């Protein structure tokens, strides 16, 4: 038992660590790690991953919320969309063929790689749209010198539509869909990038939680896998967040892209060779 436990913990710590320093979350890496190295079926990996994503989101969100990076109201508005998608996705995960899940996973890895390459700077607006103003979504964020920077929010319905897709992918594939969420908030709703990342991290807990509850209630979680994975991914993510300020993440970007492309190729190959 000890060997299995050490292997699972090592995989999970590694996935949590890379997930934290890349900003993509542990789910993106733990699902393929369980499928490829631990020879787990996709559905088992998805169930274990969803649980671990809840844990990492909770752990990582604490500092972001306390320090004012997270826009709590934007999170609450968009969670309506992600929860809807996640519940439908988790329900469908029990009936969708594995080959489809693997192909979707490969596609999501390509999207994450694209996002990692094209991540852009802030485009802060000084005027929000009427719906965002009615929902009081505008907020302030501390800049590098500690001064508060005011930002407005636009395109809530369009951002919400993409969030339904993010939730759907989360429930189906056991990932946080952080890259999709940040894209929606940064590109479409014009939130500052750091606010988008912090808010996405915060929302991931509810999105993954919705999916995890469906899996747990259905009895589709392998407890013996999910427990060490949750502990390992959380420990890895905590270590990653400690190391992150001392790393030159820009220079690691190409490494993350290569890892994502390799995962996409492996999952795509598995799907196509299984047809």
């Amino acid at each position, binding site marked *: 038992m000890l060997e299995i436990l050490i292997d699972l913990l090592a995989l999970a710590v590694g996935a949590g660590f890379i997930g934290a320093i890349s900003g993509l979350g542990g789910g993106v890496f733990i699902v393929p790690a369980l499928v490829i190295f631990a020879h787990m079926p996709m559905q088992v990996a998805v169930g274990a991953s969803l649980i671990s994503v*809840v844990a990492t989101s909770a752990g990582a969100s604490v500092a972001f919320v306390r320090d004012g990076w997270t826009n709590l109201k934007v999170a*609450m508005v968009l969670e309506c969309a992600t929860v809807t998608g996640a519940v439908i996705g*988790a329900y469908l995960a029990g009936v969708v063929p594995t080959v489809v899940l693997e192909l979707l996973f490969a596609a999501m890895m390509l999207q994450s790689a694209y996002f990692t390459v094209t991540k852009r700077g802030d485009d802060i607006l000084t005027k929000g749209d009427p719906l965002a103003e009615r929902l009081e979504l505008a907020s302030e964020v501390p800049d590098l010198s500690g001064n508060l920077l005011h930002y407005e929010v636009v395109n809530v319905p369009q951002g919400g539509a993409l969030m339904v897709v993010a939730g759907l992918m989360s429930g189906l594939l056991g990932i946080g869909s952080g890259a999709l969420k940040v894209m929606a908030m940064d590109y479409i709703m014009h939130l500052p990038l750091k606010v988008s990342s912090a808010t996405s991290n915060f929302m991931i807990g509810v999105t993954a939680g919705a999916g995890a509850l*469906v899996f747990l209630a259905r009895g589709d979680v392998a407890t*013996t896998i999910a427990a060490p994975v949750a502990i390992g991914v959380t420990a890895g993510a905590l270590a990653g967040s400690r190391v992150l300020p001392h790393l030159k993440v820009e220079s690691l970007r190409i490494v993350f892209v290569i890892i994502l492309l390799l995962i996409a190729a492996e999952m795509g190959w598995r799907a196509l060779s299984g047809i």
Partner: protein
Amino acid sequence: MPKREEDRILREWTPIILRSILIVAMVVLGAGLVLTYTFAPDYYVERYQAAQHGHLIGKEPVGLLFDRVRQGNPHAVLTIGLFVLTLVPLARVAFCFMLFVRERDYTYVALTAYVLAGLIVGALAGSAG
């Protein structure tokens, strides 16, 4: 309640809720793994190999789960730990819901109620399906 006061309460209490439940869940899961390693290592290997073939235990009635925890069943302790972990988002959204009710901010009462309902419906749909 002024908007800034509401924001202060959310920023002060949300991390406490997240961290407290996370710590409890991790302690229960850690205890479950130690119990499993001590008392049921063969069972663990058996379940691991079954999972590799897609064979899971399936639904377990909550009452039965608590009975097994009282008997010191390691697998039941692990399952309870996972359920505690999923309480993190539920507790956080429930807290926001109660805060907005107290503040009579009905737009956000409706939004958080929807999210809360989504989480509960998901669990019910899972147990029914």
